[in-house]
């Protein structure tokens, strides 16, 4: 599926730039965006190294298994088959980092969790139920303080920049309930592929 989506996006871009008689915009965009991708990776690399390093300490100190034991009751409904303490902790760290608005750190924990889930899934080409649930949760995880938007609002002299916090949390919860519900329906239909 990714093949068609990706190819389609690029081809659509080329067709439209020809229709708009502005092919150079496409070329310029292509060139600048691949540089942006590398720059983004570099900006992520430092954080990735720091968190992976700190997590290694936590793992060797036994903190990871301790955390996973604490959150197990909460997670066992969402991930009924998940027993690996490392995966559980990485997932909970990713959720926490998301909630506290540390986006890049959350990405690091999530990628680590996905790597481990992939191992557990035997590197199968089919996503496991746990993977789907985890991704569904991260995609809809609420953020306590959406700092970027609040900053924009206060720059534009809003009367109270923070008054979007409660609506954001409520909307985020609605979205989270919906995604988890969809996942649970699919899990019932196919216990695991």
């Amino acid at each position, binding site marked *: *599926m990714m093949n068609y989506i990706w190819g389609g*996006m690029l081809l659509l*871009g080329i067709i*439209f730039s020809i229709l*708009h008689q502005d092919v150079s915009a*496409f070329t*310029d*965009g*292509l060139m600048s*965006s691949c540089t942006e*991708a*590398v720059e*983004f990776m570099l900006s992520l690399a430092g954080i*990735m*190294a720091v968190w992976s*390093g*700190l*997590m*290694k*300490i936590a793992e*060797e*100190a036994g903190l990871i298994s301790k955390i996973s034991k604490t959150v197990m009751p909460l997670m066992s409904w969402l991930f009924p088959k998940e027993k690996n303490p490392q995966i559980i902790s990485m997932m909970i760290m990713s959720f*926490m980092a998301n909630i*506290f608005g*540390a986006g890049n750190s959350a990405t690091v924990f999530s*990628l*680590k969790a*996905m790597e481990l889930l*992939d191992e557990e899934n035997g*590197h199968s*080409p*089919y*996503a496991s139920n746990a*993977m*789907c649930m985890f*991704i569904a949760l991260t*995609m*809809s995880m*609420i*953020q*306590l*303080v*959406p*700092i*970027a*938007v609040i900053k*924009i609002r206060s720059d*534009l002299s809003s009367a109270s*920049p923070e008054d*979007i916090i409660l*609506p*954001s949390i*409520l*909307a*985020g919860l*609605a*979205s989270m309930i919906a995604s*988890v519900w*969809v*996942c649970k329906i699919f899990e019932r239909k196919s216990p695991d592929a």
Partner: protein
Amino acid sequence: MPDFLSLFSVLFLPILITVILVYGLKQKVAIYDAFIEGAKEGLKTCVDILPFLIGIFIAIEALTCSGAMDFIESAVSPVFRLFGIPEELISVIFLRPISGSGSLVVVEKVMELCGPDSFAGRAAAVMVGSCETIFYVLALYFSVTAVKKMRHAFLSGIIGYFVGILASIYICRFL
């Protein structure tokens, strides 16, 4: 309340780091060596995801810089009007799933145009505060796995996204 939340968000990472370091020292872990070893693994992951990042970035840029995105938006905007979604928010709804920084720019434009405390301005802000860049997340997260078929990860993301969008709009009408 917001002050308390912001303070909590600011303190989260320093507290977490302190707990890890102190706990590591208490358990007599060679924390520096462990850190270096872990950091190496982290950098390896970084190199692994780079090809995927480049792939995602160029495909998104192709859609936005060529005007294809604008065309898709105007083609489906009648459907959104049926749901009572204001015109200004349509580009936010379309850009948010694929680009975090791109959608912030659009939200800023909406707020400049309609005012940060207008209905559209607030709804746009709430959308960005509550909805994630789902396509980007899907592509990036699966890039470290061997998965070729995402199964219901895609559908649950899309449904969750639209519920979030509609909730943002309806909640902002009342709150």
